[in-house]
């Protein structure tokens, strides 16, 4: 979908118009047509996007989805800054270069930052965004973090908009709290389409848009990663899990909006 089609798409409400008028958006398409259609073309390439693990052990899926979105950036030479803390490395394991290479990433383009605590991690992420050295900055936060609040996320959003950098926030094992993020997603590992011989197949995710700053209605989808072309495809919603019920936790802000 090109930019003309996006602009000509019927605005869903006033917020969408406002969102459009602020600044011409560079949109990063997810790749799966069904998802991009709902998103009017993709997620903002210069915004902050939050990815929550749906369950206590879905932090891996949230982290992987964020990493894959960073790989979707059109500039294949750009660097990716992965910021995490000692706790994240302890709980969710370290990034594995061989696995990343098989996902379609070039591990040599990754810069790993391991901060001692949340404050340092937030500062490192903000510096990474402002420096424009990396096309994408991913901040991984495990569990409840008091420092990730409206103020700190607003700061990241402004920095990302200013620098034109894709900022991604990965929240494993945490309940969604009010934040200034451009979009908020809930990510869950989904059963893959098994390959012949009942062998686990390609990486598949259930993604659930919880909140969009421009007021795009929440929706759920299932996507599969194609590491050859570095693109997401729509996955058939098979199995017991239905897309509508994918959201395990409800978003407090969403509830407030609908009330």
């Amino acid at each position: 979908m090109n930019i003309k089609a996006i602009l000509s798409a019927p605005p869903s409400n006033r917020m969408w118009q406002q969102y459009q008028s602020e600044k011409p958006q560079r949109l990063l398409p997810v790749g799966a047509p069904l998802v991009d259609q709902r998103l009017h073309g993709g997620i903002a390439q210069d915004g902050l996007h939050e990815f929550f693990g749906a369950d206590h052990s879905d932090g891996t899926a949230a982290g992987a989805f964020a990493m894959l979105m960073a790989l979707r950036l059109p500039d294949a030479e750009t660097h990716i800054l992965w910021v995490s803390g000692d706790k994240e490395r302890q709980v969710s394991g370290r990034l594995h270069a061989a696995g990343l290479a098989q996902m379609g990433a070039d591990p040599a383009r990754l810069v790993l930052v391991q901060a001692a605590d949340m404050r340092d991690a937030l500062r490192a992420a903000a510096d990474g965004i402002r420096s424009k050295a990396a096309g994408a900055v991913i901040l991984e936060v495990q569990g409840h973090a008091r420092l990730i609040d409206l103020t700190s996320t607003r700061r990241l959003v402004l920095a990302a908009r200013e620098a034109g950098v894709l900022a991604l926030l990965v929240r494993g094992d945490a309940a969604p709290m009010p934040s200034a993020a451009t979009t908020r997603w809930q990510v869950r590992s989904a059963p893959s389409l098994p390959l012949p011989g009942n062998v686990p197949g390609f990486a598949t995710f259930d993604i659930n848009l919880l909140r969009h700053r421009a007021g795009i209605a929440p929706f759920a989808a299932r996507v599969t990663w194609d590491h050859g072309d570095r693109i997401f495809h729509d996955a058939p919603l098979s199995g017991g899990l239905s897309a509508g019920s994918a959201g395990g936790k409800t978003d407090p802000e969403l509830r407030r909006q609908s009330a």
Partner: protein
Amino acid sequence: MRLVACDMAALGLGMTPGMALADARARVPDLAVFDHDPQADRQLLEWIADGCERYTPSCALDPPQGLILDISGCAHIFGGTEAALARDLKMWLRRHGLTARIALGATPDSARAKARFGVRVINALPVHALDCDAKVHAALQRAGLKTVGDLAARPRAAFAARFGKDYGRTLARLLEEEDPRITPRRAAPVIQVALNFAEPVARTQDVMAAITHLAQQSAILLQERGEGGRRFEISLFRSDGHVARLAVDTGTPTRDAALLDRLFGERIDTLSDPLDPGFGYDMIHMAVPCSEHLALVQAGLESKVNVKAEKAALIDRLSVRLGPERVRHFHMGNSHIPERATFERPAQAGPPSAFRITPQMQEPQMRPFRLFDPPQPVEVTALLPDGPPRQFRWRRHVHLVHFVEGPERIAAEWWRRPAGHEPGKGGPTRDYYRVEDSEGRRFWLFRHGLYAEGGDPRWYLHGLFA
């Protein structure tokens, strides 16, 4: 117990080092004595040496109580003569309650001997200054040779034949004929710039302004040499003699004053114990101990961001703030064991290695996204002892295995073990399984050992797939 050292007052009372404590007490009953603490003496000497770096970057310890400074080319700052420098040094030491005997010489040995024996002319030095043993000393005395001057007047060859070549060399060094140079305690930097203050500065802003100025100066000097520094050190000389040192390392050679300014700002912000200016700093040094070739770069007319420079700057900045070992790149390891196949190294240590792993288009990922090191133990139920897992318990949750692929057998590195080439001694083989549970999560499990290898092999979870 014996006296090791005495101060001037004690010497005046007739005490001498080496005297028995009982004798000394018998003479002066209320003599104040302290335990000998060589460690503290050494620390004091180091402290004085730090302070002496305000005179010259090249300074060597001569324990137990000597310091040798190489002041070649340093005197011009203190009015042009070496004597003026020595006077200034003596004043500085006196301000800190230290008495010192200072002597100037063309070689370290001559200066040292003059200071030790308190003479001004080398020829007047006693033959003791040769550091010779008692037998040689006695022989010299018997020959009527009392001073170094007496020795210098004689033919050197006979002397060397009688007492050995070493004494000839010592004599040559004393007579300033041979200069052995000193080995400074800190290597002389490539570039050093200094800033003196008439009034000590104490505010952090003033210190930062001074650092900015020094950074600009060293940038100019580096540019003249066509080089960039990899390490920059700031020495802050406090007026009470204490010296604080701050250093920043950079991943690539640089002479960007603005960048250095930022890095030192970060460094000061992240000090675990903040700078204590006390009564202020009266001198600030910046040294560049390590530099590399750095060519001039033509700035482009287009406003495109120089990503490479930005990345290097970001890495330096984060490394200074968080510590170099917390900012890393991936590198290929030389092993087929998954946790050693790739490793991480500080990003400042060098660029990442090129990865030769190409994804198989028709295959899903065979290696996990996240890896646990060490692997996490899990309880596994399998239908057959050597078969794939059916269910497993990890972090108090039971996972039912729906799809499974494996085993992928990875042998241990038997060549690392003594007698590893003998059957059964190479270490346990790992059988890896890629599994997906009923909820769609994908795991990488392995059994550490085969049943054929004996024992009761344990199961581990090694990684998580996307």
